[in-house]
């Protein structure tokens, strides 16, 4: 019975004897221990009597001896049962904690280059010497001489030590190969003699395992494992392992087998990393925790448990996954011998669900792209970028989900916007202009528009946080489930940069011919550059720029011919929204690098005459009216050809092999962000009334007023509706209502509608049934209306002006501004004050080819309400020029 069980039993016994809980708990461990060792005390007492001691002395020593033996046995059992697991966790600590956070403790095995060259060079003498086979064979000879009868004789051991040390070393042929070479080798022999003399049991198998292990330790030391802190830690680990398992009493019987296991662990940790690195250069070998893996295998074989099994499965699954994804695409990522920080980051990834999701997506995306023959674009958000740039709508989830149809539905949210900080003194970054809107959707169709408070438009210079509300009027939303979509349209930009390396073509060719490099990126390793596959780095923004994998990392510049490369960029929507329109794309290329004229698709780009950043040339988009620039849900690509002329090569290359330069890209766009919230709208129970427009959804100054009465069951009686409008005389209408719903329509004899701002109250009652209800409403502003739009001509020739005219009106007699937008020609939008009619004159001289010119007009009144858009078209003809 275990000590714990004995203690529990003792506790129970004390309690049964009437002792208190505290008293029993204090005494129980001692009583339990006493019970556990009771049997042993008798044995120890008997041993003492048998040894000739007096009973009193035998009795006095029996208890301490029994207790000590019991505890030692317990300790041995604990060690026997859990030591291997303990070492697994020790190895995990080294591989995943120390080496992750303290780069100085990293150790990645020995480089086998030297051994490889020696072996393949046929330098057998060198191999013999490197591995110090001399001392190994010396010890074996020593052992053979002394272990013939499996019982070393002391005189023979020490005599043979002298023989081996001196005589063997003097024999001319033998001394070259078996002579002792240094004091350490002498001590190895000396301690072998000590071991043979004093060891209780010496078997040939155990002796061979022991000397092999010590020979390996000696070689590890000779190879310089102690040159680095990481090496020292790993060396200490294997030494501690030896002391625990190979010398510990708990493992005495298995010591020989464990020693061979230790050799395997040493092989794993000190030799395999480089071996696999050479065999499988595409795998992230540097991140594999060989030490942990080796010890895990040992633990699973020697002390199997569910923990070790689980860890093995976890490791194999994770690294199998990683190897599968690595495939060919990690070819240029991996650093052969000295993994940099980023690679050691991977050790913590198994514990991150986001990592697994990202890995799966990458795997799917890559195979999709390669399968379809498209380019694969890649980028990353710059981890050093400032966070929270952009516009965010937060807090939607905190709103209630249930509302009544007769109450105002108010959805609260927080609008946060952070802009770029201006570049320098006197420069002002473009402010962010945000337009807000909200709507209620059912089955993906817009049902009702809500109103935004306090205002629909914001202008943010640097940083702002605003509380906003989306409000639906009472009864605007009928009973049902809705998805409220709060959207923000704002202008923003993404700044990105891409690092690339420039090298003289002759340098690469020369190094290849000399087989100093196998691929172009190897020149980076020769120059100690670890960032061998830099991706585009983006600022935090809803649109991310990604570079095509067709842009080589190392760009070779020829002195004879023009170097040209495809420069492909993808603008990808990475937030939950839509790119409403791309306003501009700018490339800042290092000086003396050009974009080939006319070779950008789909958006034409030209060198800009605007002031450039020092050391850069600016190329930007022209012709902003391409339809591909609008309403981008996922992504759009831009491809150009970059040229470097041979005469410009020396202007780009710096002294040295590799010149590092950056390509900078900026994309300006309007982004539509959307956040969603699902709500339920319920009907109020019982008799109720509401005020509504007779003919439209919104009760505004262009509406007739109705009072709509509702009940849970059929009314079947006369309903009297009384309408109060400001301080005017109330009007009453009676109507018989047979159903559960009926309307009281208030049409004035003169058909006059109520002006904007009129406060209305409607009382409804059914006298006999004593039903009564009131409703309140305010007459809203009516949006302006564009009655018609027309072009002065259906067709014009290039160079002739054309007039776009509209007729607009507003029931509230508000001042109207009409916004004119144009498509088909590169003409900026314009706004005009419009009382009744207005027009704009459109020049057509910049038409390049025959096109259809569209003029779209929208009226906006002083309250911010807008009319529907109307469009008119005309044809602009461009005649071919005679040569």
């Amino acid at each position, binding site marked *: 019975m275990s000590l714990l069980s004995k203690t529990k039993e003792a506790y129970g016994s004390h309690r049964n004897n009437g002792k208190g809980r505290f008293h029993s708990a204090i005494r129980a461990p001692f009583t339990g221990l006493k019970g556990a060792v009771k049997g042993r005390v008798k044995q120890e007492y008997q041993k003492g009597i048998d040894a000739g001691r007096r009973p009193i002395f035998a009795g006095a020593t029996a208890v301490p001896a029994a207790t000590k033996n019991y505890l030692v046995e317990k300790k041995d059992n604990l060690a026997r049962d859990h030591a291997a697991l303990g070492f697994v966790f020790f190895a995990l600590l080294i591989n995943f904690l120390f080496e992750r956070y303290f780069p100085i403790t990293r150790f990645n095995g020995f480089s086998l280059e030297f051994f490889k060259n020696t072996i393949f060079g046929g330098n057998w003498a060198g191999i013999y010497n490197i591995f110090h086979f001399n001392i190994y064979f010396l010890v074996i000879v020593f052992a053979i001489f002394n272990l013939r009868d499996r019982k070393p004789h002391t005189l023979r051991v020490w005599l043979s030590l002298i023989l081996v040390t001196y005589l063997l070393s003097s024999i001319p042929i033998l001394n070259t190969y078996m002579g002792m070479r240094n004091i350490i080798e002498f001590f190895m022999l000396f301690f072998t003699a000590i071991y043979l003399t004093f060891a209780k049991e010496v078997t040939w198998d155990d002796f061979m395992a022991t000397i092999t292990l010590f020979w390996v330790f000696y070689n590890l030391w000779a190879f310089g494992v102690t040159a680095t802190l990481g090496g020292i830690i790993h060396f200490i680990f294997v030494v501690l392992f030896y002391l625990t398992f190979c010398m510990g009493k708990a493992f005495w019987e298995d010591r020989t087998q464990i020693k061979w296991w230790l050799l395997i662990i040493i092989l794993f940790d000190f030799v395999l990393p480089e071996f696999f690195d050479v065999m499988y250069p595409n795998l992230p070998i540097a991140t594999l925790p060989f030490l942990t893996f080796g010890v895990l295998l040992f633990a699973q074989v020697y002390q199997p448990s569910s923990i070790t099994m689980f860890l093995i499965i976890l490791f194999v699954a994770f690294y199998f996954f990683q190897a599968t994804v690595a495939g060919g695409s990690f070819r240029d990522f991996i650093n052969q011998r000295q993994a940099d920080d980023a690679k050691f980051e991977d050790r913590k990834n198994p514990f991150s669900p986001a990592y697994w999701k990202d890995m799966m997506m990458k795997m799917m995306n890559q195979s999709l792209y390669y399968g379809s023959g498209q380019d694969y674009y890649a980028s990353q958000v710059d981890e050093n970028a400032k966070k929270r740039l952009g516009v965010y709508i937060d807090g939607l989830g905190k709103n209630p989900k249930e509302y009544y149809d007769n109450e105002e539905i108010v959805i609260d949210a927080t609008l946060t916007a952070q802009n770029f900080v201006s570049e320098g003194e006197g420069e002002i970054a473009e402010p962010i202009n945000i337009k807000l809107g909200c709507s209620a959707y059912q089955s993906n169709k817009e049902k009702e528009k809500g109103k935004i408070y306090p205002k629909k438009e914001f202008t943010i210079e640097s940083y702002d946080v605003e509380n906003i509300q989306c409000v639906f009027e009472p009864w605007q939303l009928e009973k049902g489930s809705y998805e409220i979509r709060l959207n923000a349209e704002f202008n923003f930009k993404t700044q990105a940069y891409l690092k690339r390396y420039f090298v003289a073509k*002759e340098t690469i060719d020369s190094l290849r011919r000399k087989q100093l490099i196998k691929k172009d990126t190897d020149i980076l390793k020769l120059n100690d550059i670890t960032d061998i596959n830099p991706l585009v780095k983006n600022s935090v923004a809803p649109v991310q720029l990604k570079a095509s994998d067709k842009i080589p990392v190392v760009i070779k510049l020829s002195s004879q011919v023009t170097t040209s490369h495809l420069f492909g960029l993808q603008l990808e929507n990475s937030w939950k929204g839509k790119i409403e329109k791309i306003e501009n794309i700018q490339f800042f290329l290092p000086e003396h690098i050009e974009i080939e004229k006319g070779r950008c698709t789909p958006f034409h780009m030209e060198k800009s005459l605007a002031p450039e950043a020092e050391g850069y040339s600016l190329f930007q988009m022209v012709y902003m009216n391409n339809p591909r620039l609008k309403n981008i849900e996922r992504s759009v690509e831009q491809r150009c050809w970059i040229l470097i002329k041979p005469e410009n090569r020396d202007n780009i290359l710096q002294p040295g092999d590799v010149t590092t330069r950056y390509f900078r890209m900026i994309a300006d766009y309007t982004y539509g962000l959307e956040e969603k919230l699902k709500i339920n709208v319920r009907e109020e129970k019982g008799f109720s009334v509401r005020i509504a427009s007779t003919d439209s959804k919104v009760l505004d100054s262009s509406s007739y007023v109705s009072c709509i009465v509702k009940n849970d069951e059929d009314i079947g009686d006369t309903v009297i509706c009384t309408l109060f409008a400001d301080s005017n005389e109330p009007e009453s209408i009676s109507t018989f209502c047979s159903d559960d719903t009926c309307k009281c329509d208030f049409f004035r004899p003169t058909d006059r509608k109520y002006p904007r701002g009129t406060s209305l109250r409607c009382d409804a009652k059914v006298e006999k049934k004593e039903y009564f209800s009131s409703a309140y409403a305010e007459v809203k502003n009516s949006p302006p209306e564009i009655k018609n739009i027309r072009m002065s001509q259906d067709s014009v020739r290039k160079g002739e002006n054309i007039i776009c005219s509209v007729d607009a009106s507003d029931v509230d007699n508000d001042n109207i501004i009409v916004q004119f937008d144009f498509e088909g020609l590169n003409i900026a939008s314009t706004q005009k004050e419009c009382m009744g009619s207005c027009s704009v004159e459109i020049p057509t001289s910049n038409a390049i080819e025959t096109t259809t010119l569209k003029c779209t007009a929208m009226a906006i009144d002083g309250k911010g309400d807008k009319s529907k858009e109307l469009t008119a078209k005309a044809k602009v003809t461009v005649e071919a020029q005679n040569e």
Partner: protein
Amino acid sequence: MNKKNLAIILISIIVLTGCGSSPKDTLDDIEFHKGTKGLVVEFTKNTLDEVVEEGRIYATLELKNIGASDIKEGILVPSVEQDYVEIDSWKIPDNFRTARDNVLLFNLKGKSLSLQKGEKQIVSAIINTKKIEDTRNKIESTLVFNMCYPYSTILSETICIDTDPEGLSVAKKTCESKDITTMGGQGAPISITKVEQKVIPSISSDAVRIQFTIYAENKEDGIIIDDNRYQQVCLGEGITKDDYDVIRLKSIRFSDYEYDISGYEDIECSPNPLKETKNKYYTICTLKEENSIPKSKFTFETPLIVELLYGYKITESKKIEILNNDILT
């Protein structure tokens, strides 16, 4: 343990510690011609990893010549990311000087009796950082320094010239001819690892010719370059494949016989520069026919001195972080 066993052990210890050869001479030139390192460069600990934008950082390098040869007119070429960083100037000792494009030229003595650890100097590059984009908290930039220098490897060993390979002479040979295999280098990154010796018959039956095959290996991580063009290679000017892997045999001499690249030729050596094969370089030197050694000259021991010349290129780099001013305020 009984007294008898203890006595045996104690006697053994006395015997073992009492006997033994006296230590070999120390502090001779064998110490200086050991090892495989030549120029060793590293950043000092006080070189900071972080600097603010539009700030200044000192990149301090310690250059040590721990090989056996002196370095004359070595070149140090810095390579920085000019979009974010530029070298303003250097703080250098007297035996260094600057050339165009912030390149340094230097001399460093190797190990000798007076400089047992070789000469060491410290240079500091004063680096200015430029403004970084406001969207970024910090940028990582790599400073790369390439060093190219001419160097030599000298092997000095005793060989046995066997004038009677058939063993026809009655006289007892005083030594035995064998190949030279070295471990541990000669105090230079290019190690002469082996010298094979062969006796080949002369036209005259009473003379012999000696042939040496000399093998060398690159024991360090640098690149072997042409010692006549090492500066151009470092600067990246007009590089061709013939600029790499050029090891010249400057001289070989034993007894009264000599080969020197400047024209003194008792011995024919080819190929020179050494030819590369399987990561080794070799050349074969044969005593000329007219210089055959008569068989009447008894087998004798003599020093063999071999000197190789080459250029060597190493690189040292450091990552720094350029911080945005905003994160400090």
